[in-house]
């Protein structure tokens, strides 16, 4: 392995310059990061439009907006787009590529070409998936879980294209994961120890371990499923002696860790954002690191909690209940550490901070319903209902997507050299927070009282709450307008940010904004205390200090 030297980049003959480089096979990790980010947002708007179709259909208890087949295609595409083309590429690919080389003090990722390949697998996979909607037979109709035998009986072409697309995206994810592991472990600047890395590195290391261990299982499973569809083999076809529960085990062996692949990077990003805007060190660095690793280990052994109603044996139900519940312990540690980071700080109430705090509130709610769902008897009643839909949107939207927005507000000055408008940002936060909670809170009640998920028609007694939920979804759609206006307008006319507008200490801020091609002019800075904010104890201003400041202040 070699670290790219400046000479590799100087003869720019083949690489386009200027804005064109964002459409090229660029090897610059920052360009690739932004390629991921913008592509992710494009798919976010497509997935959001699909969600709009779902919420529109559900404003009335009868199936009247789109045909039932189309509805199932829409819910399948919505799930697949949002998971594989929006959240996973953005929290891993976009921010990972942009930030990790800075954090380890490297000039690029370990394998720049693999990195570019990983990104360029995404647009064709996405276009393939969306295009399958327009072919005869339409897109896949069996949900993002593609459970056989349903996925064997729905129109085959759409299902096969879905498999192909997910395989490409899984490949992209594995390439990215390998690259992150190699970069974090091997490209660290001399003198930089593992326990001095910013927390996002640890989050990405944990996430990448999960990606590399579990994604190949999904790939293998989907290849077997495609054999069942194309070649009429019988791996998962009960009519040919196959077993559908085996598919569920294999599928969830990836797809539960996938939840951590979506939230662990978000945990890392929040750990970067909060100390800067609270002007305090990250509380409990060491326990944060161990919590991430505990979540990685536990995350691999909880998958069967998705199958409590599938006739799993009792010992398995018991084991997976306990294992799942225990994930609450390391996760809880991280949340208490963030609360302690806020406590006694000087909180700047800007958009990045507001979205981060929104994340804490939403994720705690989703975590509490998650611990409840881990209990087999509780799960038996609400499994496959709108309660679950509410729960996982609190995790992936209320959790991860809120963090993505917080991160955009936080790093936009680094990406562009200009600040985003704070008034529009706060408006964006308020609309998103209200819309999100209005949309997904009622769904918990709907699930408890008898509304299953993935339905185009439902009991008329649920109409009012579904309409409230749809209003919330509309509000969420509207909330993206101030964001879009802000991002586009600020790119040209935003306030000039300077190199380090937040006065932050992590290495990406110790260079120009936007950074030069190889990140730093001269040697990379050695940052051994990335969260070294705050006034040491002796300097606390006694006139403004609270009792708790003094109480905790002596522990430095």
């Amino acid at each position: 392995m070699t670290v790219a030297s400046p000479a590799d980049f100087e003869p720019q003959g083949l690489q386009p310059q200027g804005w064109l480089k964002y459409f090229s096979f660029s090897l610059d990790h920052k360009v690739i990061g932004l390629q991921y980010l913008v592509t992710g947002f494009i798919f976010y708007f497509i997935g959001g439009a699909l969600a709009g179709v779902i919420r529109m259909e559900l404003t009335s208890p009868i199936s009247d907006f789109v045909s039932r087949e189309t509805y199932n295609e829409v819910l399948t595409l919505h799930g697949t787009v949002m998971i594989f083309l929006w959240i996973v590429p953005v929290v891993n690919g976009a921010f990972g590529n942009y930030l990790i080389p800075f954090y380890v003090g490297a000039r690029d990722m370990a394998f720049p070409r693999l990195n570019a390949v990983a990104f360029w697998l995404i647009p064709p996979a996405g276009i393939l998936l969306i295009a399958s909607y327009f072919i005869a037979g339409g897109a896949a109709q069996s949900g993002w879980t593609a459970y056989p035998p349903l996925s064997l009986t729905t129109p085959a072409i759409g299902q096969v294209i879905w498999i192909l697309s997910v395989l490409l995206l899984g490949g992209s994810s594995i390439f990215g994961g390998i690259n992150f592991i190699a970069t974090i472990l091997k490209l660290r600047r001399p003198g930089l120890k593992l326990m001095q890395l910013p927390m996002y590195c640890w989050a990405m290391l944990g996430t990448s371990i999960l990606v590399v261990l579990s994604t190949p299982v999904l790939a293998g499973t989907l290849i077997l499923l495609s054999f069942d569809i194309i070649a009429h083999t019988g791996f998962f076809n009960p009519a040919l002696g196959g077993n559908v529960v085996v598919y569920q085990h294999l599928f969830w062996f990836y797809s539960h860790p996938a939840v951590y692949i979506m939230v662990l990077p978000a945990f890392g990003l929040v750990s970067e954002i909060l100390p800067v805007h609270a002007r305090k060190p990250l509380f409990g660095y060491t326990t944060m690191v161990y919590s991430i690793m505990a979540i990685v280990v536990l995350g691999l052994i909880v998958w069967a909690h998705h199958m409590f109603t599938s006739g799993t044996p009792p010992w398995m139900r018991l084991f997976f209940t306990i294992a799942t519940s225990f994930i609450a312990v390391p996760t809880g540690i991280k949340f208490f550490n963030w609360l302690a980071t806020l406590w006694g700080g000087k909180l700047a109430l800007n958009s990045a901070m507001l979205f981060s705090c929104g994340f804490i509130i939403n994720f705690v709610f989703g975590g509490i319903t998650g611990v409840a769902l881990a209990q087999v008897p509780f799960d038996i009643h609400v499994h496959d209902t709108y309660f679950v839909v509410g729960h996982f949107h609190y995790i992936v939207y209320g959790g991860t997507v809120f963090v993505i927005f917080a991160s955009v507000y936080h790093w936009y000055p680094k990406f562009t050299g200009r600040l985003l408008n704070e008034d529009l940002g706060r408006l964006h936060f308020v609309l998103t927070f209200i819309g999100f909670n209005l949309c997904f809170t009622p769904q918990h009640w709907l699930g408890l009282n008898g509304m299953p998920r993935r339905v185009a028609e439902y009991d008329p007694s649920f109409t009012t709450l579904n309409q409230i939920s749809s209003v919330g979804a509309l509000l969420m759609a509207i909330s993206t307008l101030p964001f879009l206006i802000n991002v586009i307008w600020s790119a040209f006319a935003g306030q000039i940010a300077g190199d380090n507008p937040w006065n932050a200490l992590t290495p990406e801020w110790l260079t120009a904004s936007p950074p030069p091609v190889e990140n730093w002019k001269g040697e990379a800075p050695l940052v051994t205390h990335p969260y070294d904010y705050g006034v040491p104890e002796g300097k606390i201003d006694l006139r403004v200090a609270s009792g708790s400041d003094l109480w905790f202040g002596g522990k430095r």
Partner: protein
Amino acid sequence: MAIPSALVTLLLGMGLVLAGLWVGQNVQLLPLDASSNAPVYDSLFQVLFSIGTILFLGIVGLVVFSLVRFRRRPGDLADGAAIEGNLPLEIVWTAIPAIVVLFVGIYSYDIYERMGGMVALNDHSAMHHPAAVQQASNGSAGMADASPGGSGEPRVWAGIGSSDSSEGSLPVEVTAMQFAFIFHYPDGDITSGELHVPVNRPVELRMKANDVIHAFWVPQFRLKQDVIPGQPTVLSFTATRAGSYPIVCAELCGPYHGGMRSTVVVHEEEAFNQWFETNAPAKPKPATLASAGLTPTA
């Protein structure tokens, strides 16, 4: 004189716990309970709801308090206190969730056992349902696929509530297909699109799926069981409240999944017998009894 902060914290904590307990006791989010395991389920829900409310209100309170109390005043450019950790505090907030989670896990295990979920599956020595096994092997084509070969005795997958069944239970065969549930009463040779059951008598559903995975869900019974092709499944329950409740398919099974609904009618004992008499053919066919001894054909 200012109130000591320890006292304020204690009072806030007590208030929070009381509020959580009150919410758990008084906020009713669940539908009517109409089976013997529903009240058991509801008591678990109450515990989870109380704990969840305490945690959620506590954390939201902390976040909002921090945002207000510690917000940066205009003109203040100073940093906060440089606190990097506090080992005793971290031990406390690791231990408390661990204890809570362990308690909830053990409690829900107990609930699960009371609901009858811990009956061993696929363990032939502990098989409580010889009739079900026979029924399964008697079933129509496709059922025999469940047999792993060799033993000749098909596996029967029991769902929750399967220990409810006893000698006096009412057997009902349930066939799930795109997009309906068909109920067949072997005792009276009745076939129905609605499930009719007597109150306070165990009912044993012997379920199979013809095409794709379906799930049998009665929200008022707090019971759900996937019906998987190739896996005969037994689900038992005892209805405790007369009335009509929805049966919902809870697993995506195709375009008309949302319309795959039926009704379970819980009758008083006499009313059920009357329904049974009215709907049963004049005489149970002797062929049905004789065929019980045959080996699986398909």
